[in-house]
């Protein structure tokens, strides 16, 4: 039976991963990382998890070792953030192209420069288009749940793709929360051992990571894109199963007071909980405000988004990263592209908040909300609260 626990979310994520019985973990401690790999190392050192833990010399090698281990048929896990993700960047697109499940926790943080280790989503936005299934947790409970779901999704025979579980650096990774932790029996029941499609072993010889010349590269890309798009079906099935077993519901876009809303805000990650309080305040003031919280970023839930914004007049997209020199901030650019063909699309405004760990308060959401309700801004996007 699940147990109520109170602990740092990074450590809870580690415990959840341990319940999934990974065979190999490879992680590098800093550039930067969170307590997730450290706590997993503790669990392995105490003999509570039978696992090969490779304390690699860099993130590049962390993901490389995970790729090799996954190719050999193991269940594998790693974690990183910020510059660490950028250092492993070369390998990030290779993993899905080889159709290898690797599960990675990304404690979302800003990227240099200036050097800054605090929270925003710029690290993830560098890898969003590289073929990984990507989920965003809003709190500790979702982090635990997504970590466990990720293995089942990524290793599913119809998916065979790596999965990124995003949780905001510090705002989630270093925060103590009360959560429900499933027990080993429950996780074993939910998550069967990995059955690899192919594995590096002399008993069944295979060549992996082969050369795709121009005569096959396009087909390979298309096949991978289809695999990622089609993974949504499996994700929804597995979320349904999770709900039945644990009573916690997951949808690609979760909504809060959105049904009758005129104005919707769309957030991702830990901002969602703060934004909910703002929505409550706005409702008290008589605004018909609602919230959409994006849980699944890849594959992008386009149909769900179209449905969720039906009937609303304004949509405020809150981003936590800059797409330098781009048409909008990354989430908003994607949202606009999805809604372009909708006949009754809402007016869309875009604010970037909380870069590099800048505080995001309830009143900030209220201000953004009221500003957006007034008039269309001059610029496609704004960095909220920037001085000058």
């Amino acid at each position, binding site marked *: 039976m699940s147990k109520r626990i109170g602990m740092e979310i990074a450590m809870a994520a580690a415990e959840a991963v341990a319940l999934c019985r990974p065979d190999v973990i*490879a992680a590098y401690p800093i550039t930067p990382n969170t307590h997730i790999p450290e706590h997993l190392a503790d669990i392995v050192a105490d003999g509570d998890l039978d696992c090969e833990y490779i304390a690699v010399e860099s993130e590049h090698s962390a993901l490389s070792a995970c790729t*090799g281990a996954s190719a050999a*048929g193991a269940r594998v896990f790693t974690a990183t953030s910020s510059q660490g993700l950028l250092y492993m960047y070369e390998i990030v697109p290779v993993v899905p192209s080889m159709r290898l499940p690797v599960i990675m926790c990304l404690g979302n943080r800003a990227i240099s420069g200036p050097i800054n280790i605090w929270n925003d989503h710029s690290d993830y936005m560098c890898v969003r288009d590289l073929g990984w299934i990507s989920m965003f947790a809003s709190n500790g409970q979702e982090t635990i749940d997504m970590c466990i779901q990720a293995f089942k999704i990524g290793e599913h025979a119809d998916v065979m793709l790596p999965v990124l579980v995003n949780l905001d650096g510090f705002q989630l990774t270093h925060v103590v929360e009360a959560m429900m932790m499933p027990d080993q029996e429950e996780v074993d029941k939910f998550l069967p*051992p990995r059955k690899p499609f192919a594995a590096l*072993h002399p008993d069944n010889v295979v*060549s992996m990571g082969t*050369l795709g*010349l121009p005569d096959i590269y396009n087909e390979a890309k298309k096949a991978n894109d289809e695999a990622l798009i089609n993974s949504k079906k499996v994700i929804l099935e597995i979320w349904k199963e999770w709900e039945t077993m644990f009573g916690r519901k997951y949808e690609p876009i979760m909504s809060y007071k959105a049904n009758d809303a005129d104005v919707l805000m769309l957030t991702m990650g830990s901002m969602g909980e703060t934004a909910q309080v703002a929505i409550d305040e706005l409702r008290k003031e008589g605004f018909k405000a609602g919230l959409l919280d994006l849980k699944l970023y890849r594959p992008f839930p386009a149909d769900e988004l179209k449905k969720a914004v039906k009937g609303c007049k304004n949509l405020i997209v809150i981003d936590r990263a800059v797409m330098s020199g781009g048409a909008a901030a990354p989430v908003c650019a994607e949202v606009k592209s999805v809604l372009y063909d909708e006949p009754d699309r809402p007016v869309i405004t875009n604010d970037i908040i909380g870069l590099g760990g800048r505080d995001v308060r309830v009143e900030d959401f209220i201000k953004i909300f009221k500003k957006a309700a007034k008039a269309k801004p001059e610029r496609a996007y704004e960095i909220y609260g920037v001085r000058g």
Partner: protein
Amino acid sequence: MKSIVENFDLFAPKLVDKEEYYCSGHRACQGCGEALAIRLMAKALGKDTVVTNATGCMEVTATPYPTTAWKLPWVHVAFPNSAAVGAGVEAALKSLRRKGKIADRDVKVVSIGGDGGSFDIGFQAISGAMERGHNMIYIVYDNEAYMNTGIQRSGATPYGASTTTRPAGKQSVGNTTWKKNMAEIMVAHKVPYVATACHSYPFDFMDKVKKAKKVNGPAFIHCLAVCPTGWRCPSDACIKMGRLAVETGVFPLYEVENGKYKMTIEMPKKLRPIEDYLKPQGRFRHLTPDQIQIFKGMAMLEYNKVLERIKHSKSWSDMTS
């Protein structure tokens, strides 16, 4: 030197494993020393092996989809990470075997890469994998430049070699430095078995691969592989050039077991003149007699270092007991 076919018994080739694990139809150049070395390596390793390959000639020529030259399980991920991928495979096989998820028998992981993927961009991953003590072999096929991309210099390019990024010219001798001593660097990592080898001495090479396979821990082999394309010598001279590299003292063949150095191919009392090695190669053709003396000085410094080590090095096990 014992005979014209060097230090192996006349009919020994007949005793070699006839099974080919690296097959015909690969797309390496005519007379490719690397392809030969890989073929011999695979024979020495046998069936229970997993190969991880850095990006390079041996990767692109062996597995253009949908065909593969490999009969061993093989994986390529990227250029700088063959050793890290190998470490992951090794960890996975260990973990899965312990848990009873795969057959309970030894399968050796062998990571391979060219000199660019090993001396330069893959250096960190090799250092990490060797230092952590994974039960794996790393074999570098050193053809002394980035040949796959058009003969650019690497950390393994010797003095005086003309490459496309350090070409010989009116003001330039070509490469100005001597190659990194990878074997010594690996000994400094306390790797229990380190060896230099060359395809021109196939039995010496295969013995070393077999020895490395028996080590329960990391092993490292630096294999000189002649590239007729990049060295600008005739393709049929491939074996001869490797032999000359050894006989002139430019690339002595030795092994280091637990820190103890030993020459495995006996060197002649009087080394062959270095000109014999340089003259047939287009990449050295521009060298003046003075520059040849500099080349010789650099090569002899390294060679004498090896001789010193052979005289004075002690096995680590002797030192601890």
